[in-house]
């Protein structure tokens, strides 16, 4: 189950990422003028070149600039909120004892994600993307393992997404808002992981376990294209999302 939620390529890409990822759009022109940037420029290329998985069927683009980033977050929060709403209706959750810690944890998280989604919808107002239609047919909401591994995948994906998108935000206010949310998503991720395997709140699939690299013991980030390739597998054909400007 968990394997289907994780992009196969994410770990393989990790090592190569710094070569072409860190050049922000905004700094592109600065690099263009500097000889030192020549190599980076070549590697960066001029166009998004690997979004083949999301173009043909994509019907919703998040837009450009800060609105684009906020809509990107809104899309992910919608997906999470919809997932937990289904969890609360499913046999796994309804079968939990009233006083079970897992019941309280899922009930709380469901509310947090709904608040996040409603907050972005309100904040974006007329700029908000449409309400997305999820497709959770791959998840068995009556099965604890299926629910927990899916929750883990959504939460880890959310943290990686926020961390990877921070650099696209230009208004400091929005960066702080994203920061306020991402740490709560990390708290969710940690507890879900602990429910699956005690003490797995941080493990080497989400943290770089190197102690000497540039990302030593830091959480692994994902760029919007990587995140959406996964997120889109849980969205209906009419609701596939792209973030063409966030590269």
């Amino acid at each position, binding site marked *: 189950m968990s394997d289907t939620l994780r992009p196969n390529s994410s770990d393989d890409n990790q090592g190569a990422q*710094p070569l072409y990822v*860190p*050049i922000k759009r*905004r*700094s592109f022109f*600065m690099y263009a003028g500097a000889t030192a940037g020549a190599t980076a420029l070549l590697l960066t290329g001029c166009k998004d070149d690997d979004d083949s998985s999301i173009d043909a069927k994509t019907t919703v683009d998040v837009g450009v600039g800060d609105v684009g980033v906020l809509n990107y977050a809104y899309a992910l929060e919608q997906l999470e909120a919809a997932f937990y709403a289904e969890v609360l209706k499913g046999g796994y959750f309804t079968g939990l004892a009233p006083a079970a810690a897992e019941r*309280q*944890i899922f009930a*709380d998280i469901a*509310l*947090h994600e*709904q*608040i996040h989604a*409603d*907050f972005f*919808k*309100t*904040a974006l107002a007329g700029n908000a993307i449409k309400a997305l239609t999820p497709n959770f047919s791959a998840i068995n909401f009556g099965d604890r393992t299926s629910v927990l591994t899916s929750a883990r995948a959504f939460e880890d994906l959310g*943290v990686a997404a*926020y*961390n*990877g998108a*921070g*650099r696209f*935000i*230009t208004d*400091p206010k929005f*960066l*702080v*808002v994203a*920061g*306020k*949310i*991402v*740490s*709560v*998503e*990390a*708290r*969710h*991720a*940690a*507890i879900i992981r*602990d429910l699956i395997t*005690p*003490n797995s*709140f*941080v493990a080497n699939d989400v*943290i770089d376990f190197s*102690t*000497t*690299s*540039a*990302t*030593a*013991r*830091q*959480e*692994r*980030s994902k760029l919007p294209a990587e995140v959406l390739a996964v997120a889109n597998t849980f969205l209906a054909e009419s609701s596939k999302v792209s973030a063409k400007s966030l590269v």
Partner: protein
Amino acid sequence: MNFFNIINKLSEVDPDVMGRLDTRRSVFNSLNTVSKRAAMASAPAFLAAFFSKAYAGTSAGDPKEIFNYALTLEYLEADFYNKMIASPFFATASALDQAAIRQISKHETAHVNLLKTVVSGIGGTPVTPVTFKAATFASLTSFAKQLEVAQLLEDTGVRAYKGRAGDLQGINDVTITGVGTINPLQAALQIHSVEARHAAHVRFMRGQTPWISGNGDLDNQEHYKGAIPESTITQSGVNLTTGLGTPYTATDAQASFDEILTVAEVLAPSRAGGLVGA
């Protein structure tokens, strides 16, 4: 020229000045030396040096100062966990809890080493290591008591990193020999979320909600207060309990967003600042 009058005047226009002057570790250290020299030096020269120290790096966007601030907090955390592991009470914890603390300890030590390299790599001088005050640690006479402080340190760390994210915005990538290319904002965010995972786990170890719901046994401590307290329910002008169409409780509203602490707030004696010492 009366030095303290000047501080008072300055505090009228900058209420934070005392925070800048007495809580920033590097300033504090240099202050002693500068004060001694001042007895012999001319007052104007002294004051110029003094204020340039107090305000150095506090403007947005000096990554050297920001990463040294992060390094200070990581030193404090790393030393705290080293003390915890060396404590006689450590053996009283379950094997699982011991493993968790060892795991967190390794992360904090790795963060220290990385941040030291980063500060040096961008042309700065890493701050002098700080330690967790021995007398305070000695007063924590059980694993459970130590874990309370671990929770406060982790939750404060999350708030501290969050408080500086805006200052790292738009700063170009830096390439550090032997380490690689670092985007300062992204690196800080990536450490920030690891701290949040630590905080959640420590809270859970203590039987608390992993998020700051406001009804935990420590949630009313100073570490959760400040100019923008964790009890905040309004985000970007939107009241989350009444302004979202669906009503939500204040508990869920506050738990769904974590809040920042400023540098002065983090380093105040009532929070991390009070835990630093010999």
